[in-house]
């Protein structure tokens, strides 16, 4: 049974990989870059899917955990001379530890407390970066990047551009994250999370160690966030202005719009938050909307969509699709 799920997930992951790879080949460099951001956001939103959608905990500080990943990655590259993929492994490890520490605190907290606390943590990042400026580079940050593609890859694929390489370098990690997420979603652990979310007391009566489960969720979610953060930093810089609070909010918006409880929703959400501003910008250009209005239109529209979603269709786009499908069965 478990084996069958894995095969199915393997196929899904492979299709995902192939489709993105194809898109990476056919789209223009700008959209290749945007697509790589979609993948990074997708990984980041997955962390919210698990944390909030699957276990009912809300964090407004996923950006902070992304920063843990980003800074670890940058320090690994700059100080230890690692290459980026070695450093990413360290990033994930570091964020797992950070998530564990955060989880120990968080497991004691209910939703709004957790939201506020994580928000404060996210806000303290610039202070930390400045306080330990010699290590973290202050508000100027640390310069890192994916670098040039290895020769064997160029030989295999052909000449590739800067944005394209970003995308292709991110894709394997996004695929691994997806495969991991798919399996986790259907696993015993996934079911326990849902149980904790839906009824904490009932779950504990059923023999689930609620505290430990919550901490574990945090650890897993942090792993995703750390990976996303490392990739996001490798686009060019790791610094406080790369992981602002608004990043956490963007990811949360994506998660909610796409659908908090589905992996497909996480991807839809990532696509939305990346491409919606582009769409609005081009529309407000077409309709010749005054700059003063147009400048704020993306923020306005995504905020309105966020509220409409939670009020009218809390399950998000993916949830709506699912509902639609099951009704017509």
């Amino acid at each position: 049974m478990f084996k069958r799920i894995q095969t199915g997930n393997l196929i899904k992951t492979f299709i995902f990989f192939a489709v993105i790879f194809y898109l990476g080949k056919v789209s223009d460099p700008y959209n290749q870059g945007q697509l790589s951001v979609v993948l990074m956001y997708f990984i980041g939103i997955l962390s919210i899917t698990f944390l909030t959608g699957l276990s009912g905990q809300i964090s407004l500080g996923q950006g902070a955990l992304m920063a843990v990943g980003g800074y670890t990655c940058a320090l690994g590259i700059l100080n230890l001379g690692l290459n980026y993929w070695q450093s990413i492994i360290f990033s994930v490890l570091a964020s797992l530890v950070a998530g564990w520490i955060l989880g120990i605190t968080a497991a004691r907290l209910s939703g709004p407390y957790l939201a506020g606390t994580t928000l404060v943590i996210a806000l303290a990042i610039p202070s930390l970066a400045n306080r330990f400026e010699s290590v973290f580079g202050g508000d100027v940050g640390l310069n890192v990047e994916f670098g040039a593609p290895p020769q064997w890859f160029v030989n295999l694929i052909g000449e590739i551009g800067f944005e394209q390489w970003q995308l292709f370098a991110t894709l394997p990690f996004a695929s691994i994250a997806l495969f991991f997420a798919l399996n986790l979603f259907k696993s015993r652990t996934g079911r326990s999370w849902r149980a904790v979310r839906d009824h904490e007391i009932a779950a504990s009566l059923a023999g689930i160690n609620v505290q430990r489960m919550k901490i574990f969720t945090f650890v897993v979610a942090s792993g995703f966030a750390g990976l996303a953060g490392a990739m996001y930093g490798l686009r060019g810089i790791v610094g406080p202005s790369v992981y602002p609070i608004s990043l956490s909010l963007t990811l949360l918006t994506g998660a909610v719009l796409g659908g908090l409880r589905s992996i497909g929703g996480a991807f839809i959400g990532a696509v939305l938050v990346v491409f919606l501003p582009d769409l609005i910008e081009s529309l407000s250009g077409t309709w010749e909307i005054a700059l003063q209005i147009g400048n704020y239109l993306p923020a306005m529209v995504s905020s309105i969509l966020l509220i409409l979603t939670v009020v009218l269709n809390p399950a998000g786009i993916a949830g709506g699709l699912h509902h639609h499908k099951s009704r017509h069965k």
Partner: protein
Amino acid sequence: MNIRASLSRKKLIGLTAVLIAGSMTLAEIPANAADPGVSATEIVLGMQLPETGAASPGYNKVDDAMRAYFDYVNSKGGIGGKKIRLEVKDDTYKAGLTISTASSLINKEKVFAFIGSIGTQTHISVIKDINRRKIPDVFVNSGFSDFYNPATYPTTFAALGTYVTEAKIMGKYLKEKYPDKKIGILYQSDDFGRNALEGFAKAGLTFEAKKTSADFIAGTQGSVGLASQLTQLKANGVEIVIIAAVSSATAVTLLTASALGYKPDKWAVISVGSDATTFQTIAGSKGIPASMSAAMLTGLISASHAPAPGDSADEYVTAFKKINDDFNKGADKRWDNNVMQGMNIGYMATGALKGTLNPNSTFSAKNNKTCQANAKKATLTRVCFIDYIETNGSKIESAAFTALQYSATTHEAFSGFWIGAYDAATVLQPVSGTRVVYTTDSGNGPVTVSNYKRPAIAADALPKN
């Protein structure tokens, strides 16, 4: 380009149709090939800045002013028949977004050059990539000195003097003029504040934490505890307070100090933070009448490389102001330092573009022949544009009282500043009656008096390059 080699690959995968689009490359572009963003009728320039968000106030006026100047140039027929189009992207001062907006400008808008980018933290995230692609990155609105070493960033040029340079000049002036006064500093804790500290140190002014120096968090505009910092300076008897902060923060500082009854003998404010209009607007919305806020500003020392926006006698100010009135379509076009800066960048850019397309210009030995030939054909290339700026730095016109010092060894803009004090009409006037411009570098070079004579502006307010 390696299209043929990659074609066979893609056939293997079976995606033949999409091949060509997918194989973008960064290969070296020869100096005589046509570059993106330039056509027979148009030159596309790209700019990114915080148009919205916490860091936007004030700065969101610069792009409107630049566009106004370019619209003016276009109304006069453009440059060599080419009109200038300015594409502006809002990065909300978040580096993660800057990378995307830069990519959009490069790949979607296909800009010829980046111009006037605002934001040190954000520009760091893209400067490497822009340079690697050999895209001109001109007139960056940041005084962060690390940006302007051509060995690291060959295509990046500044639009300001560096914070270090300015602080060195102001520091020397204060030290000599007020040898017996206790001088302190209030600075925002970021690269700007720290660079200024470094410059003052090079001028021999150092400050003792908690005694003569106090910092506050950049971007909070004093909302957290500015009063305490001022009380500290007051309690320690600091007689001259230097402010290294943005204009809105300077405004809160002066107003808070006045509320606390703290009246140091002199305020000395780094130019970025000494915009009189911002100060008077903020004071005005606090219910302080213009006459009173003008009185508060009187005697405040600042430095500038350019004329004060309030200096109505200055021919550049008059000309730019008129263009602003006629062409600025921004939400807020009130005449101030930010608008003036935008105008000046538009002016400098126009000069540089004109010069590049002028067959009589000279370029570096390496490119001279090609670029002159290009100019004859009215072909604008990135290589020649950069070469022109680097080779003819001192010939590019600007409203500044100091020459642009671009060369093969530095891409810093202005090495010179003059020290002024605000008069009762909120115009910065030279402290010594006549304007003396001092120059120095961002390193340990000496501060000397400049003998540069600013050329007169043409009647049509277009650079003559």
